[in-house]
C-alpha cells in the first residue's frame, strides 16, 4: 500500500482545480490549510498553475485587492463563509466584475450554501468541492487534519464529518481494493461502516469475493471514546514528546526554542526520510540521548577521516560525498540535541517525576486518596491548569467517576485557582463523559439522560481482563521494547492498540466476546477473509500478502504514543500497519479542544 500515490493524485487534482479558471488568480486559503498545502504542493506549485497572490483568510480583513479571479480554499464553516460573503459584498461596488470561486474542502455543506444565499452573494460566486481528505503525513500515517472532529462528534453529537471519514475510506478502497475484514470498535465506527456501504458503488460481498486488487487485508475503525485514558497520559516516546512540547503540525515542527536564543532554530520535516529521526522517533525518551551520542561519535570518525586523506583523489571524494552528508547530519543532530535539552528542562521544571508517579497510581487504582491530595496541592500552587485537569479527568476515568464530595471540592478549588468562568468548560468535560460525579448509591436520584450517556465502561475490569496495566512494570524493557506498554514506561497499554493486537492474532472474535462487550459502544465486525486455516501438521498455509496489511483508522484523533505502540506491534508480528486518523492529538490539545475558553 503505497500511500504516496494519494499525494500524487491530490496534486493532480489541485492542478486541475487551479487550471479550471484560465488566467491569473488570487488564492485565499483558510489558515488551517497552510501547512497542509505545503505538504502536498507548495507555493511554487500554486504559482506554476496560475496563482498570482496567496492570501491567508483573516477575520480582520474587510476586503482584498488583487486580480479579477479569486479562489477561496476553505473548510465549510459558517464563520468562514460569512467572512467571504462580507468580502464579496464589500468589493461589489469597486470590483463588480470579479469572479469568485469558493472551494469547500472536503465538500460543500448545506448550511454554508444557505449562508451564501442569505447574504445575497449566491449569484456572484461559484461553489465547488474539493475532496482533499486523507493527507499523507508519512509512510505510515494518513490524516484528515480535522481536529474539530473530536468536539463536533463526541461533545456536540454532530455527525457532519462522519461522511468525510467514510468517503475517505471509500476512496482508499477504490485505490487499494476493497478491504475484506472490517472491525468497528465503538458506535461512531459502526456508523462509519454503514455510511461506507451506502457510499460505495458496488456491494461489498461481491467485490471482496472476487478478490482482485486486494492490497489491504484488515481495517480497524476505532472510536476515540472507547479510550480517553490514553491521550490523557503523559507521553514518554520521543516523537510524542516533541508533539506535546513543541507541537507538530502536518509533520512539520518548529524547533525554535520559545524561551532561549539558542543557535539551532529552524523548521524540520519529521518523516521517515529523516534518517536520524527515524531511528529515535519511537524510542523511550531515556534512550534517545544514548543513540544521539553514539551517532555523534560516528560522525566524528567520519570527520576525522579528513586528517588521513592521502591523495587529491581521496580528497575530492571526501569533499564531494562525505562532507555534504556530514554537514547535513551534523545540523540535524544539533537540532535533535537542542530539542532533547529543551524537553528535559521543561519536564524537570514541572516536577515531572511526581506527576508520573501519580499518573501510574491512578492507572493502577492504588492510593487514590494520595492522588487527590497531590491534585489539590497542584491547585493550591496554581500549577499549569491543563496538566491538572488531565489528572482530574484521569482520576474520573480510572475510578469510573469521582465521589460527589471530592468532585465538588475539586471543582471549587479548580475554579478558585483558574477562574470561575471555566465552569462551562468543566461542564463540557462532564458532558463528554470524562469527568463525572459519582453519587453514592443510597441517594435515590432519578437517572437523567445525561447520566446514562456519561456512564463509561468500567475501566478497571477492562484493564484487568486485557492486562492493560502490566503487573510488574519492571519487566518491560524500555531500551529494546518487549511490550506495547513501553510507550507509557510500562504503566499502561493503549486500549486500541491492545485490541488490534488481540483481534489480529485470533481466528475469530468469539473467544473475545466477554471482553469486547465491555467496550463502550460495542464491537462489530465484518469478516470476509478467513484467517489462514491451520493445516494438520500445525503449519499454516501461507495466505495472501494482503492479510498482513492493516489499516487502523482512529475517529477523533490518535496520539503519537499509540502510533509508536502500533509500529512496535507491526515490527513484532511482521504486519504492515498504516495509521489513518482524523487528526493527531496530544493530551493538551485534546482537553483544550473541548474547552470554552483559554484561561488567563
Amino acid at each position: 500500500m503505497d500511500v504516496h500515490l494519494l499525494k500524487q493524485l491530490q496534486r493532480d487534482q489541485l492542478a486541475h482545480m487551479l487550471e479550471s479558471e484560465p488566467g491569473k488568480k488570487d488564492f485565499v486559503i483558510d489558515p488551517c490549510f497552510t501547512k497542509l498545502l505545503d505538504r502536498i504542493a507548495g507555493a511554487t506549485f500554486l504559482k506554476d498553475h496560475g496563482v498570482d497572490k496567496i492570501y491567508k483568510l483573516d477575520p480582520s480583513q474587510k476586503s482584498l485587492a488583487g486580480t479579477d479571479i479569486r479562489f477561496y480554499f476553505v473548510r465549510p464553516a459558517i464563520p468562514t463563509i460569512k467572512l467571504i460573503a462580507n468580502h464579496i459584498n464589500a468589493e461589489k461596488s469597486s470590483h463588480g466584475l470579479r469572479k469568485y470561486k469558493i472551494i469547500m474542502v472536503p465538500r460543500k455543506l448545506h448550511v454554508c450554501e444557505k449562508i451564501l444565499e442569505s447574504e445575497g452573494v449566491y449569484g456572484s460566486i461559484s461553489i465547488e468541492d474539493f475532496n482533499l481528505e486523507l493527507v499523507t503525513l508519512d509512510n505510515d500515517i494518513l490524516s484528515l487534519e480535522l481536529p474539530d472532529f473530536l468536539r463536533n462528534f463526541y461533545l456536540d453529537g454532530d455527525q457532519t464529518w462522519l461522511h468525510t471519514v467514510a468517503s475517505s475510506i471509500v476512496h482508499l478502497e477504490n485505490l487499494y481494493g476493497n478491504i475484506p475484514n472490517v472491525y468497528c470498535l465503538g458506535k461512531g465506527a459502526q456508523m462509519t461502516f454503514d455510511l461506507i456501504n451506502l457510499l460505495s458503488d458496488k456491494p461489498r460481498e461481491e467485490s471482496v469475493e472476487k478478490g482482485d486488487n486486494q492490497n489491504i487485508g484488515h481495517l480497524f475503525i476505532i472510536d476515540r471514546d472507547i479510550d480517553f485514558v490514553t491521550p490523557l497520559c503523559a507521553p514518554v516516546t520521543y516523537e510524542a514528546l516533541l508533539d506535546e512540547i513543541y507541537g507538530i503540525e502536518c509533520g512539520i515542527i518548529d524547533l525554535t526554542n520559545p524561551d532561549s536564543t539558542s543557535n539551532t532554530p529552524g523548521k524540520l520535516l519529521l518523516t521517515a526520510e529523516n534518517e536520524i529521526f527515524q531511528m529515535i522517533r519511537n524510542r523511550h525518551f531515556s534512550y534517545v540521548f544514548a543513540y544521539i551520542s553514539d551517532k555523534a561519535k560516528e560522525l566524528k570518525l567520519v570527520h576525522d577521516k579528513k586528517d588521513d586523506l592521502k591523495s587529491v583523489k581521496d580528497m575530492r571524494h571526501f569533499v564531494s560525498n562525505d562532507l555534504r552528508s556530514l554537514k547535513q547530519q551534523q545540523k540535524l543532530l544539533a537540532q535533535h540535541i537542542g530539542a532533547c535539552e529543551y524537553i528535559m528542562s521543561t519536564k524537570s521544571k514541572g516536577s515531572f517525576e511526581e506527576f508520573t508517579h501519580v499518573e501510574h497510581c491512578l492507572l493502577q487504582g492504588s492510593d487514590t486518596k494520595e492522588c487527590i491530595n497531590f491534585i489539590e496541592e497542584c491547585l493550591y500552587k496554581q500549577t499549569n491548569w491543563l496538566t491538572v485537569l488531565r489528572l482530574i479527568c484521569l482520576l474520573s476515568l480510572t475510578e469510573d467517576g469521582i465521589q460527589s464530595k471530592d468532585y465538588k471540592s475539586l471543582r471549587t478549588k479548580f475554579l478558585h485557582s483558574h477562574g470561575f468562568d471555566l465552569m462551562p468548560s468543566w461542564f463540557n468535560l462532564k458532558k463528554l463523559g470524562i469527568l463525572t460525579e459519582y453519587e453514592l448509591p443510597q441517594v435515590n436520584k432519578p437517572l437523567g439522560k445525561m447520566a446514562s450517556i456519561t456512564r463509561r465502561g468500567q475501566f478497571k475490569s477492562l484493564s484487568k481482563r486485557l492486562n492493560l496495566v502490566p503487573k510488574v512494570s519492571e519487566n518491560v524493557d524500555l531500551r529494546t521494547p518487549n511490550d506495547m506498554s513501553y510507550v507509557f514506561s510500562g504503566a499502561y497499554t493503549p486500549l486500541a492498540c491492545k485490541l488490534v493486537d488481540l483481534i489480529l492474532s485470533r481466528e475469530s472474535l468469539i473467544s473475545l466476546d466477554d471482553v469486547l462487550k465491555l467496550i463502550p459502544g460495542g464491537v462489530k465486525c465484518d469478516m470476509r477473509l478467513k484467517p489462514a486455516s491451520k493445516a494438520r501438521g500445525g503449519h499454516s498455509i501461507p495466505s495472501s500478502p494482503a492479510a498482513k496489511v492493516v489499516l487502523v483508522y482512529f475517529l477523533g484523533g490518535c496520539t503519537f504514543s499509540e502510533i509508536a505502540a502500533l509500529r512496535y506491534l507491526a515490527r513484532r508480528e511482521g504486519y504492515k500497519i498504516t495509521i489513518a486518523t482524523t487528526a493527531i492529538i496530544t493530551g493538551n490539545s485534546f482537553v483544550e479542544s473541548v474547552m470554552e475558553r483559554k484561561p488567563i
Partner: protein
Amino acid sequence: MAASGRGILSSESDSEQNPWENQESTNSHRKTKNIFDDDVSFDRAKKIILNDLKDEDFENDIDEIGWNDEPVPPSKTFPGSSTSSEPKVNLDNLGTPSYTSPRLAASTLSVTKNTNPVKALLTHSRSLSSGGTFKPFSLSENLSRGVSDPSIEEVVQLESNRSFGSTDINKLQAEIQTLQRINLRAKRDRWSKLPVENTIKRMLKGEACTLEFYKSLDDKLALIDESVKVHDGNCIIATVLFLKRTVKASIFNFEVSRRPVALNHYLNYLRTKLDYQELSMMLEMTGRTEEAAMLQYKVASNSTLGTSKTSALRNVLRSHFSMDQQLASEASLVAEHIDLLERQSPIEESDAREEASGRNQMFRNIPRRRSIFEMPLITTLYYCCLYHYHLSENSLASPVAIRKRHHICDKQFLYCALGAQARLQKWRTIEELLTTKSWFGGTKMKSAIGWDKVVNILNKHNAPLDLLHKYLNFIDDLELRAEVAKKNSIVLSQP
C-alpha cells in the same frame, strides 16, 4: 479521481456560456418546435420530429449517437443553459454533482413554465452522469427500469445532437415512442416527489435534489428519520432546517425534541451561528437545563464591560441557577464569581490610583504587573496578601475577608500568604503565620502544609539560611529532610 474530471467539466461549461447564447439566437426557430414543451402533445411532437427529419439532411447514423454512457461533452448537453435568467448558478450545478438547496431548486422550477422544461431536469441528469454511476444500457433495459434519470440525459442529448439517420424510419419511430414515454415519465417525476430514501441518497452522494415536493408533515419527518438513519450530518441539518422553514414553531419544536440526533444537529447549528437565544430556549425546552444555564453563564461572563457584567451574571443567577434545585452548588459558585468581581473592581480602582500617584512605597518596590480585575480568585488572594496583608477584616482587600467569604481552606491560604510574604522578605510575618497558640498560653510552630513545602517556598525567595535550617528541622522524616535539603542545596547541620 472524480473531482479532477469535474474541474474540467465546470470550466468548460463556464466558458461555454457565451457560445450557447449565440447559438440560441441563430437557431431560435427551434424553440417553436420543442417537443418537450408542456403544451406539445405526443402527436405534435411526432410531427415536429418527422418534419425536422425531412427538412434537414443528417449524416450521422443513429447508432453513433452515444446511447451508451459515453461522457458527453457538456457543450452538447445543455441546450437549456442558454437561457440567461440565472446563468452562473445553474451552470455550476451542472459542472459539479451537488445537492442544490431547496430554495434554489424551487426558483429553477418556477421559471420552467415559460421556458424550456428540460432545463429544470438538467440539474438532475447532469449530476447523475458526472457521478458516473450508471452502466451502459440498451433501450429495452431502459424501459424496464423504473429510473428515468439517465433517460432524460438521452433526451437532452438527442435534442441537441439532432443527428438522426434519415434512412431508417422504423428505427426512428421506435425511437419516438421511447422518447415519448421517457418524456412522460420525466414530467411525472419532475412534478412528483421521489421516494424519501432516494432523495436522501442523492443528497448523501452530493447530487442535486429538492425537498420542496415534500408537503406532508409525515414526509418531512420521514426525511429527517432517513437522514438520521444514514448518519450524515449534512443531510440531517438540511432536512431539519427544511422542517423548520415549512412548519410552525410548535410542531417543529415538538418533533425535533423527540429526535435526539436531529436535535443535536440543530443545537450545533445554532451554536455555530451564535444564536444563543434560540439555543438556550431549545436546551431548556428539552430538559437540558444545566447546559442552558452554563450557556447563559458563559455568555454573561464573556460580556466585557465591568458593571454590566456583574448585572448580567446576577440575571443569569436569578433566572437559571437559583430556581433549580439540581444546580445549587453551581449557583453558589456563580454567586462567588459575582462577589469576586465586585470585590476586584474597587480594589483595582484605588490601587491603580495609588500606584499612579507614586506615594505608596509598596507599589514602587513591586510594580503591579497587570490589572487584578477578572483574575482568578487565588490570584486575587495572593495579590491582597502581597499588597494588603495587614488590612482589617472589614476592608474589601483584606485577605482574611476573602478567605472567609470564599471558604478558602487553611492549606490554600497558607500557600498564598507564605508565597506573598516570602516575596516581600517579611520573615517575621511568616514566623507569626506559622505559630499557633497552644492550650496553655504557650506557642507552638505548626504548618497546614508539610514543612518540606514551606522550606521549598522560602528557599525560592532566598530566605536566610538559619531560618531555612530551623524549618528544615521540623521535618520529622529524616529521609525527606535530607532530600529537601539536597534539592534546595542546603548543607545539613550535623546532629
